């Protein structure tokens, strides 16, 4: 699958009508990726409760195809919900590395965006983007579930703009 997907766009581009195939494939792949985002159940602090609320009865993230998985190997999305401390930071990096590509990160709440109310603490990492790359930042302390849903929709928009030309090894060959 890897080589096929990685190099196909560049082979196809040279054929007449190849561009149409690429855009159709883009549309299909992005549509399926954006609508089956499986997050890792990873709650750090207060924000975790709003994340769980968003998954539960009233807000029901299931309708966006967001269904929590307990292991990083089955997840494509990680909500960093809460304060990231210096002791936890290496574990977060490890979890992120264990996830398969493509993977996305939503930083949820002030603490994981910038350190928030604990910015001046000796034990807190000042922003999760110092450890792993972040796709969407959701503001609030803690953000309301509606806010998190907005963040997920923003991420879906972002995924839908992606193209297979940006995939894996293709980037290196280009």
């Amino acid at each position, binding site marked *: 699958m890897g080589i096929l997907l990685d190099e196909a766009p560049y082979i196809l581009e040279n054929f007449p009508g190849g561009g149409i195939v690429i855009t159709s494939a883009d549309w299909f792949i992005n549509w399926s990726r954006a609508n089956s985002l499986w997050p890792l159940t990873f709650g750090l602090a*207060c924000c975790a*409760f709003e994340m769980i*609320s968003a998954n539960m009865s*009233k807000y029901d993230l299931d309708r966006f195809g967001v269904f929590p998985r307990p292991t*990083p190997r089955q997840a494509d999305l990680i909500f960093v919900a809460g304060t990231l401390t210096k*002791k*936890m930071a290496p574990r977060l990096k490890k979890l992120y590395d264990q996830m398969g590509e493509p993977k996305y990160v939503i930083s949820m709440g002030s603490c994981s965006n910038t350190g928030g109310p*604990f910015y001046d603490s000796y034990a807190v990492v000042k922003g999760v983007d110092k450890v792993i790359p972040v796709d969407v930042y959701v503001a609030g302390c803690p953000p309301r579930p509606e806010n998190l849903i907005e963040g997920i929709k923003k991420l879906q928009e972002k995924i839908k703009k992606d193209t297979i030309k940006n995939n894996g090894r293709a980037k290196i060959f280009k």
Partner: protein
Amino acid sequence: MTENTLKDKDGFETMYLNMGPQHPSTHGVLRLGLVLDGEVIIKAEPDIGYLHRGMEKLAESRTYQANIAMSDRFDYVTSMNNNFVTALAVEKLLGVEIPKRAQYLRILMAELNRVVNHILFFGFFAMDLGATTALIFGFREREEALELFESVCGARLTYNYFRVGGVSRDLPAGFIEKAGNFVKMMRSRLKDYDDLVTGNVIFQDRSVGIGRISKEDVLAYSLSGPVMRASGIKYDIRKDDTYSVYREFDFEVPVRENGDCFDRYMMRMLELREALKIIEQVLIKLEPGEILAKVPKIIKPPAGEAYVRTESPKGELALYLVSDGTANPYRLHLRAPSFINLQILQKILTGVKVADVIAILGSIDITLGEVDR
């Protein structure tokens, strides 16, 4: 750190299982190092500190009012109770008289938060034992309670409702009716809970007789709250060392005898009913009046120290506050019930099966924000 070369009684090598810090059932970022002989635990070692945010140190560089805002994040499930203990400690230093209505509003909010905590406990404990439906039920009721909080103070989780000398704002129009409806609704839903979980044979098989804590252990480890009362010790700070205006309310202190996971679960369910009783009484007793005593804008308590203890849903929540006469506290120390209740874990986990670890940990009901601070 545990050496993973421990031998079992037949001389075979044991297995070292690392549970957490990322685990759906450790209620946050607790790490348990388990040494296993087959399925039996020989040694369990909790490793905490993954959420250590240095709050007690930060408190020294913040004003007293800002510390109430920060206390929301100690135990983020019971923010109102944390507000309560912080406000009480500062008021003890200052020596202010709190208006009657403010006292009632405080108790109303603290008890509502107790209901929310116990609903969450119900959901998470049942989910730990494999019943996802209970959590969905629990969150349905929790949202109703959070709507009440939201209408009063505008926040769902971190309320910052208490002020030194009272509370920040009065109840909105129609709150009393809505809260009354919530109590009624909750009573009927509790029947559903009992039908769904309490009487469930599988649930009872997983929890009855598991993780027994004896009376002696409770005293030796100074456990508190529902964990203590489940082992047969009738002690509730709201009754026995009363604070605020709790003495005006009529409520029972439920006690269970066995001290196993099921009794700890039952304690929460019984306490939930008592909390609803108190809420109902507050709603009747509320009278119009002041909600904030006259306190200076910049709070500078006289030098001295104060120790205040309260009954939070998790146990005895106490705050030790030292003032040196400036606008910031000299020292703030929290006696966190989750942290102290967690200490028994190492003892009761020895000799149980792996599957029961989750049940025992869930039944103690910890919040890592409070354990690590």
